[in-house]
C-alpha cells in the first residue's frame, strides 16, 4: 500500500513536471532569458567570492580552491533541491487564495502536487554552475584522495540535498499555520546555502554550534568537506562526524514528513 502510494506520487510528480515544462515553452523568449538570467544570478553569486579573493589570499584560513569546493558542494546540493522542491514556497499563497482545496480532492499525494507546482526548469542553472565550480576546485585542490574521501563526496551531495529538501518541506508545512510567512523559509534555505559557501572558521563558534545541534545545516557540506580537506572540526567534534551526514539527512526528512502531515491536518480552508 505504502509502496504503491510512493509510486503514484512519483508518477504524478513526473506528469505535473512535464506539463509545466511544456507550459513554460509556450513563452520561449522569456524562458531563454530566464534560463540565462538564472545562470547569470548564480555566476554573480560566485563573483562576490572572486572579488573578495582579488583582495586577499585566504578567507578564514581557507584558500580560493577550498572556498570554491565549499561553494560548489553547497550550491550543487541546494540546486538539486531547488529544482525538485523550489515551488514549495507557494503553499502559503494557495492556503490564502483557497486553491489548496483543489489539490486535496485530487487522487494524488498533496506533497507531490505541491512540489511539482510551477516546476521551473530554469533552476537547472544553479546545478550546472555548482558542478562546474566543484569540478574546477577538484582540479586545484591538494587533497590525498583516499577511498573514504572519494566515497564521501557523492554521499555529501545527496545528503546535503536531502537536508535542504527537509527544510523546504518543513517550511511549507509551517505555512499552513502562517500563510504569509513564506519568507522565513528563505532565511534557512537561501541563507543556509550562502553561509555554507564560506568556511565555518569565518563564523562564530556559537553560530556553528547552532547549525550543528539546532538546525543541522553543518552536515550539508561543512563537516564532510572538512574531512575531505583534512581540516580540524571548529567546535571540537570528532573528525569522522562528516560520515554522519546521511543519518542526519534521514532524520531531518522523517521530521519534515511528520511536520508536513501535521500541517496538512491543521489546514482549514478559507471557504472561498
Amino acid at each position, binding site marked *: 500500500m505504502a509502496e504503491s502510494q510512493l509510486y503514484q506520487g512519483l508518477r504524478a510528480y513526473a506528469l505535473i513536471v512535464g506539463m509545466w515544462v511544456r507550459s513554460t515553452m509556450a513563452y520561449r523568449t*522569456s524562458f531563454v532569458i530566464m534560463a540565462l*538570467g538564472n545562470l547569470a544570478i548564480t555566476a554573480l553569486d560566485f563573483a*562576490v567570492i572572486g572579488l573578495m579573493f*582579488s583582495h586577499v589570499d585566504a578567507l578564514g584560513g581557507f584558500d580560493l580552491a577550498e572556498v570554491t569546493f565549499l561553494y560548489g558542494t553547497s550550491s550543487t546540493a541546494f540546486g538539486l533541491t531547488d529544482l525538485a522542491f523550489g515551488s514549495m514556497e507557494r503553499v502559503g499563497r494557495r492556503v490564502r487564495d483557497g486553491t489548496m482545496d483543489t489539490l486535496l480532492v485530487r487522487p494524488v499525494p498533496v506533497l507531490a502536487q505541491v512540489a511539482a507546482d510551477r516546476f521551473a526548469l530554469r533552476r537547472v542553472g544553479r546545478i550546472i554552475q555548482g558542478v562546474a565550480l566543484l569540478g574546477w576546485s577538484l582540479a586545484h585542490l591538494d587533497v590525498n584522495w583516499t577511498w573514504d574521501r572519494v566515497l564521501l563526496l557523492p554521499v555529501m551531495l545527496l545528503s546535503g540535498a536531502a537536508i535542504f529538501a527537509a527544510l523546504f518541506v518543513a517550511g511549507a508545512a509551517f505555512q499552513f499555520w502562517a500563510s*504569509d510567512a513564506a519568507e*522565513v523559509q528563505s532565511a534557512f534555505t537561501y541563507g543556509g546555502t550562502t553561509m555554507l559557501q564560506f568556511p565555518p572558521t569565518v563564523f562564530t563558534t556559537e553560530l556553528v554550534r547552532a547549525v550543528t545541534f539546532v538546525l543541522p545545516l553543518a552536515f550539508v557540506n561543512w563537516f564532510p568537506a572538512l574531512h575531505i580537506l583534512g581540516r580540524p572540526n571548529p567546535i571540537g567534534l570528532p573528525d569522522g562526524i562528516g560520515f554522519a551526514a546521511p543519518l542526519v539527512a534521514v532524520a531531518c526528512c522523517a521530521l519534515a514528513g511528520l511536520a508536513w502531515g501535521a500541517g496538512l491536518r491543521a489546514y482549514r480552508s478559507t471557504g472561498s
Partner: protein
Amino acid sequence: MRLYTAVVASSFRRYATYRAATAAGVFTNTVFGFIVAYTYIALWDQRPHLGGYDLAQAMTFVWLGQALLAASALMGGGFQEEFQERIRSGDVAVDLYRPVDLQLWWLAGDVGRAIFQLLGRGIVPMIFGALVFDLALPASPLTWLCFLLAVALGILVSFALRYLVALTAFWLLDGAGANMISVVLSLFFSGMILPLNVFPGALGETANALPWAAILQVPADVLLGEHQGAGLVGAFAFQVGWAIALLAAGRLLQSAATRKVVVQGG
C-alpha cells in the same frame, strides 16, 4: 495631486496589512545580515581599510543593505508583477482610459509601499545590527536628513528602472525573464552583494557611474559621511540626473508601447 496622495496612503495600508509577512521579512533580512557581516569581518580582518572603509563602516554598509533591500526593491518586486499581469491580461487598456497618468499612478503606489517597508522592514534589522556589531552611524541630524533624501532619490531611480522593465511585458507578455535580468543587474551594480568601492579598477568606475549606484551605494556613502560639501551636492545631482533620464525614458517607451502594440482582447 490629492488623488496621488490617496494612492500613496492606500498602498501604504495595503502593505501594512500583512504583518506576518513583514515579520518574516525582518527575520530573513536579519539572518542574512549576520551571515554577510561575518564574511565581511573575515575580509576586513585581512585588509583593514579595503575600499576606504574601516570595519565599522563596512558593517554599517551590510546592515544598511539589508534595511533598504525591501524599501528600495533591490530584488525587484513592488508593483512590477502586478503591472505586467495587467499588460498580459489586457486590463491595462482600462488603465489607459482612466483620467490619471499611468506612470505617476504606479509611482504613487510604489512610494506608499516604499515608505511602509522603510519603516516596517528597515528599522528593526538596523537595530539588530547596531546591537551586535559596532556600526559607524552619524551623530549629526543633518547627515541623517541628507541620508533620508538620498534614500528617497534612490527609491525614485529604482522605480524608474523597474517601470522600464515592467513595460517590456508589452512585447514579451511574460515579464519573468526581464525581471530576473533586472534583479541580477540591481544586486550586482547597486553594491548590495559587495560595496562598489571594493570593485577593482575600471569595473568599479563603471559600476559607480551606472544608475544602480544611486539606489544603495550613494545613500550608504551619504550616511557614512563620505560625501561632504560639493561632493554631497554632486551625489544628489547624480541621483536626480538618473531619475529624470530614466523616468523620461519610461514615458517614451510607454508611448511607443501604447501606440504600436495591440492590447490582447478578451
